[in-house]
């Protein structure tokens, strides 16, 4: 994943709000990256660009060495489905569907065979410790459990990259650390690339690379080689 001189300018009527101003960065496959910065510094904007949910106003974003601004909607959607798993602060599960159905959904978009999709969803839900809650609706689950469903959903399509925008933002510290440990394991054991936005500097310590944003610009990139040994 590479960004080259990326600008993102939001237009609000007459006013132009530059959320990202000339961001260039390369995130290597298999890295665990934390993006930190004050509120409004452009962290979510950067995540959306990495996740192909949005396209830059200027500059280019390369995902698996493809320039995403050259891809059309359908290709972007397929790319998202196959290579990226999203974890959101507010879980963003579909309320009318059970945990199981929520996890199967991305596989349906990828046109998995029914049986394969079901097996896979079951396996993953069990691996995040929700084997007994598969047929609960999101409303019947705690915040931590919902976030685990959303982690399970992000893993369903076996993506290379997992994007988590403040995954612990709505959780208490115990549930938050549990989620972080899960992400950490995914990184270490399955070799996934993890990119996480967080406010909490303590949680940022789990990451190998830390990117600091301020007013839409990168002010510091630091690597912590200790983290591997944890």
């Amino acid at each position, binding site marked *: 994943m590479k960004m080259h001189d990326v600008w993102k300018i939001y237009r609000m009527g007459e006013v132009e709000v530059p959320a990202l101003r000339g961001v260039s960065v390369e995130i290597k496959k298999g890295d665990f990256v934390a993006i930190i910065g004050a509120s409004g510094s452009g962290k979510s904007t950067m995540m959306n660009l990495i996740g192909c*949910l949005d396209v830059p106003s200027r500059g280019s974003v390369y995902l698996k060495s493809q320039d995403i601004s050259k891809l059309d909607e359908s290709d972007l959607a397929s790319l*998202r489905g196959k290579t990226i798993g999203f974890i959101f602060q507010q879980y963003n599960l579909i309320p009318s569907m059970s945990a199981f159905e929520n996890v199967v959904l991305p596989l349906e*978009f990828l046109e998995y065979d029914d049986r394969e999709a079901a097996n896979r969803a079951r396996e993953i839900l069990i691996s995040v410790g929700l084997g007994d809650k598969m047929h609960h609706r999101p409303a019947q689950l705690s915040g931590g459990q919902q976030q685990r469903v959303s982690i399970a959903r992000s893993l369903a399509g076996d993506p290379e990259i997992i994007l988590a925008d403040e995954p612990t933002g709505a959780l208490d510290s115990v549930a938050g650390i549990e989620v972080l440990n899960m992400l950490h394991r995914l990184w270490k054991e399955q070799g996934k690339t993890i990119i996480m936005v967080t406010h909490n500097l303590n949680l940022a310590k789990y990451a190998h690379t830390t990117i600091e944003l301020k007013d839409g610009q990168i002010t510091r990139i630091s690597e912590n080689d200790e983290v591997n040994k944890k």
Partner: protein
Amino acid sequence: MKLEKCFMHAFNMALHSKLRSWLTILGIVIGVAAVIAIISMGEGMQQSMTAQLSGLGGDIVTISPGFSRGTGMFVMRGGGGEGGFSGGAQATDKEIVLSRSDLQALKGIPDIALIDTNIRGSVEVSYRGKTGKVSLTGVDQRVWSQITTNKIKSGRMLDSADQNVVVIGGRLASSYFDQPIGINKMITIEGSAFRVVGIVDDQSTNIYMPIQMAYQVIEDKKNGIYDSFVVKIKNEDQLDEVIAKIESKLMVARHVTQKDRDFSVSSSRQFQQTRAEALSSLNAFLVAIAAVSLIVGAVGIANTMFTSVLEKTKEIGIMKAIGARNPDILLIFLFNAGFIGLVGGVIGIILGTILSGFMPALMGNLPLMRGTAIVSLNSIIMALSVSITVGVLAGIIPAYQASKLKPVDALRYE
């Protein structure tokens, strides 16, 4: 996403939708009910019309006293046989009748094969101590059986040699009196006894008897005076010319001109035309109702869909984030709209079927509209396709709008 999955999600979405969104299908329901009513009535009428046409034939012409300069709306006499048409007779002091000289004039027309002479009246009839008043038609028993549209259910038609015998309507025989009247039973008409030789396959209480006897039974009808003539012409193709001939001959015989004409000549074909016209205006009315309702229904569904897209904006964003392509979203919403339409259609068909069951009863007093409604497989298929199509059409714009939502914007939506 595979088609069947899109369909399943659309189905689930419909199942989980709020009651309020179901209310908007009312328009579709009414529209489809109207479509069903139109088609089934149309088919019912069609059947009864062809049945009557084949029975009546295009070669029967009826001459009756009185002439209407109005719209030419002919009304069949209740239950009367012979397709006796009477023009809405002009109000005159003197009663207008047909006479023996008119009959002579008709006999002088070579294109006419048979002439049946009719008189009508109301008579008192009694059977096994019970009495009632019914209408009686005197017919020329030598030709009646060859001209009448009546079918015999049991027994036989009147015959040349008949005198004190009658043929009676189906309802008079079966249920008018406490006990049913069978073949060869004697009934008393205005004090004289008559033997029943035939029962007509209809639901009337009419009595048919040889005209000479009818003159004796019906009080105020004098020999040589007729209420109508029913003639069968030799060549059906010359119907219009023969009618013209009859009219000119009768005008001479009755010493009248086109201006003060006092008789009507009508054919079954004309009657069918009038009836078809009345039917088509009724149909046009129903088509208008159907069209308006379906448009209202479409707007309703479109409205529901717009609301639903708005409510589901966040979900659409989520789906897009986890890999939904635009066509996936488009299809889910289109199927959803089609499904809502389908449900409206099914309810509409049920309602329409019930309604068209009532139609014959509603139309019962309008002899022109006789015929039962028939709800056929065709009309059901037609109604279902209409309702699904309307739903899908109404869903196109909202579904397209949903599919075009940008994932970031949709995800931010609360």
